[in-house]
């Protein structure tokens, strides 16, 4: 008979660590999907997810069961991803000279006629990935959660542990940061 999540968690807390495995199996796809939004290399993604699970195991005592386990785990995942971004800040220093030909073509199309540049083009996806990589860690996290994942300010505050006003301030700054980066790309290429 399959045990419920609450039973598995209770068993882990009583010292049966093998009961943790079904939880890892069930939620790893979700954790991997989140980690892949913040890291590119597969080795880094695996490190992030592994860290999330090790933290989840060691802090399981703090899970009070008031909210679903998945919410608690996703909070931990987002915070671990944010720590990862902060730890890899130096990678943002490179210039935009590495914009590829298809990306340039897409931008040229956009300049000529914004409606003619499709947003589902691979070049647009590569370009937004590069822009996101240039953002500071808090800006990237806010843009990802607020604009790309379409979460509310309150949800972001719960996920990140920041206060609601802080999320709003960081969202405002993040948009400004992104505008500056976009201006820099287009200035380099089209002015």
């Amino acid at each position, binding site marked *: 008979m399959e045990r419920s999540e609450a039973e598995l968690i209770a068993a882990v807390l009583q010292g049966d*660590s*093998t009961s*943790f*495995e079904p939880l*890892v*199996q069930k939620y*790893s*796809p*979700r954790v*991997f*999907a*989140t980690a*892949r*939004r913040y890291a590119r290399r*597969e080795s880094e993604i*695996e490190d992030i*997810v*592994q860290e999330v*699970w*090790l933290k989840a*195991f*060691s802090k399981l005592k703090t899970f009070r069961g008031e909210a679903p386990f998945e919410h608690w785990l996703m909070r931990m995942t987002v915070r671990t991803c944010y720590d990862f971004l902060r730890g890899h800040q130096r990678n943002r220093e490179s210039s935009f000279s590495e914009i590829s030909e298809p990306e340039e073509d897409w931008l040229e199309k*956009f*300049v000529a006629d*914004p409606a003619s*540049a499709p*947003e*589902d*083009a691979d070049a*647009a*996806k590569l*370009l*937004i*990935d590069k*822009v*996101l990589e240039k953002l500071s860690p808090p800006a990237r996290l806010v*843009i990802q959660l607020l*604009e*790309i994942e*379409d979460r509310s300010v309150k949800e972001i505050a719960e996920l990140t542990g920041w206060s609601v006003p802080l999320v709003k301030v960081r969202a405002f700054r993040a*948009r400004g940061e*992104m*505008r500056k980066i*976009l*201006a820099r790309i*287009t200035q380099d290429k*089209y002015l």
Partner: protein
Amino acid sequence: MNHAELHKKLIAAARAQAPDDRVPYAFEKRVMAQIAARAGADQWVFWTRGLWRAAASCAIIAVLLGIISLCLPKTADTGNDLSQDFENTLLASVDQGETMP
């Protein structure tokens, strides 16, 4: 160049990318092995941490007592040490007997 429009387009492009939720083969086994290894290491960490804490607190107490004994004012030397006092107390009855007529 309409930056607001470009911003919108790029965000739409990011939204169109479905995140990949693939999990590497036997990933959960790897996590469980790490957890088991950590649990074993935790036992040693528990004891070594406890012993180090005990040693540190003993050292602190020794240093504090040393400082206190150095700082305390020295009592005037009456010439009587502990052995002398002990002897006087023990032989008090004999001394009294000698002085009695």
